[in-house]
């Protein structure tokens, strides 16, 4: 049953877990380092490849990669939080305190994912800002990003619309983590790796061979990144923004509904099998 109080409590716990181990500012800054470095890595690969390859350097393509890499890092950072919350919770004995309450653990995971979304949004946008200036400084190339009140609002809407899909993915991974006790840490790495390839984050999905290219283009995450690019890369493409966003929302809601059912079934079965509080399931 939906309870905003429980959701808020879980989100607050997530904020405490992720930021309160040191000062919040230091914690946020440390969280910026990894996405910043990964955005820079991808941007430099493009710069190096384009400088020595057969296709001339294109600033618009650099912006395409910069935005895609940022949003990929953003999704990867919070989609796996349900898995981490379960795995770490079981390991440290926190999760049993959650599942003995009257609420479903799904609500707890949603709260944790939302808090991570808020943190990841902050850190990935900071990373994008730093990378924007670093790319300009190191590569001496302009990045045609379009930062206006409208583009920021459109980007914020796209980020919000992507939540159902990312949460759905989190529930699917979480369902596995309820049972697993060895390989759950690496599963999100696999999914993040697949997203890097299939979400059009750093190269167009049309690069992939058919039918993978068609499947990749149909992912809500691909549409989310496409919509965000339409919003912030000059000269903008508002005609493409709406359809991409609608597709992302529809796909995300379907994913969320389907994988929530999977998670709830797994949770029910895990309670019955008595594995919810086992460190070694």
């Amino acid at each position, binding site marked *: 049953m939906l309870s905003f109080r429980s959701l808020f409590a879980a989100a607050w716990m997530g904020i405490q877990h992720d930021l309160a*181990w*040191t000062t919040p500012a230091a914690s946020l800054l*440390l969280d910026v*380092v*990894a*996405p910043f*470095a*990964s955005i*820079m*890595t*991808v941007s*430099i*690969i*493009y*710069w*190096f*490849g*384009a400088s*020595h*390859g*057969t*296709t001339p350097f294109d600033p618009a*393509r650099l912006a395409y*990669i910069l935005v895609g890499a940022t949003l990929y890092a953003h999704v990867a950072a919070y989609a796996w939080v349900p898995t981490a919350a379960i795995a770490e919770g079981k*390991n*440290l004995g926190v999760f049993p305190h959650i599942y003995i309450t009257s609420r479903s653990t799904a609500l707890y995971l949603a709260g944790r994912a939302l808090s991570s979304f808020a943190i990841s949004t902050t850190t990935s946008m900071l990373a994008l800002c730093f990378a924007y200036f670093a790319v300009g400084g*190191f*590569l001496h190339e302009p990045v045609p990003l379009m930062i206006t009140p409208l583009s920021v609002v459109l980007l914020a809407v796209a980020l919000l619309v992507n939540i159902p899909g990312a949460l759905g993915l989190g529930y699917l991974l979480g369902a596995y983590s309820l049972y697993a006790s*060895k*390989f759950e840490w*690496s599963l999100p*790495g*696999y999914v*993040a*790796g*697949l997203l*890097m*390839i299939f979400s059009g984050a*750093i*190269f*167009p999905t049309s*690069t*992939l061979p058919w039918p993978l290219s068609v499947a990749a283009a149909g992912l809500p995450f691909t549409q989310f990144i496409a919509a965000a690019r339409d919003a912030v890369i000059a000269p903008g493409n508002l005609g493409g923004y709406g359809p991409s966003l609608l597709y992302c929302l529809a796909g995300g809601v379907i994913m969320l509904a389907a994988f929530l059912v999977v998670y709830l079934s797994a949770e029910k079965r895990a309670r019955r099998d008595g594995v919810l509080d086992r460190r070694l399931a």
Partner: protein
Amino acid sequence: METRPWLRTARARAQVRLWSIFGEPLWIIVNMGFPIFSSLAFSLLYLSIGAGSYVGFAVLGGVMVAFWGNVLWSMASNFNWDKQEGLFDIYLTSPASITALLVGMAAGGILATAPTAGIVTVLGWLLFHPVVSPSWPAVVLTFGLTLVALYALGMTLSSLYLVYGREAETMNNVIQEPVSMLSGMYFPSIGAFSPFPFALQVAASLIPLTIGMDALRKSLFFGQGVEGLWLDLFLLADLAVAMLIASAVSLDALERKGRRDGTISVRIR
């Protein structure tokens, strides 16, 4: 110091690592996820921008990132997990040398990561046919020295992480990507083709991977032999020795501090 117990300790720790991987081959599949996907993604990026001749850089990066991940997560932070599991107390109360444990852990880690590196290589070769022009003696020597220097860095980090609790994981997350970037795992980060200013290139060269990756690219893709890479090899050897000394010194100092403060075997901080 008696060498026999030291060697037996190192061998025993290496065996644990090997059994943990090869006793459950699913671990190999689990470990190869990140190296394979990052290698695939960056290879496809090179292809999509008309720079297919550099696809080999991405494949080589995937191979080396497997070892870097192993150093970070199975060397540097291992004592932290051992503390949580209660194993570290046993190490401390036994006559086993902690340095021997680390050396065994490193040797086992290299052998345990080898299948992942091999699979990334084969898959990259089958999918993308990267153009290579190797000077094999130089490749083998550079690869070996890079691993020694890299795992020596892991031993140094491991000793530093003795003073951390759960912050060790955060530290790993913080340094993993920047080191990959600065060391030029997928592109040249030092030399004429580097995008970085000279001062940053010098700083990056203090990471063993930076020199190692540069030398590996030169020997594997541009056919440079040992005679053309002597400076890189010399620097790598120097870094390896310096890291080993640093790890021994810091391990000793932090172990004594931990014992004095009573925090060395605190499981969760």
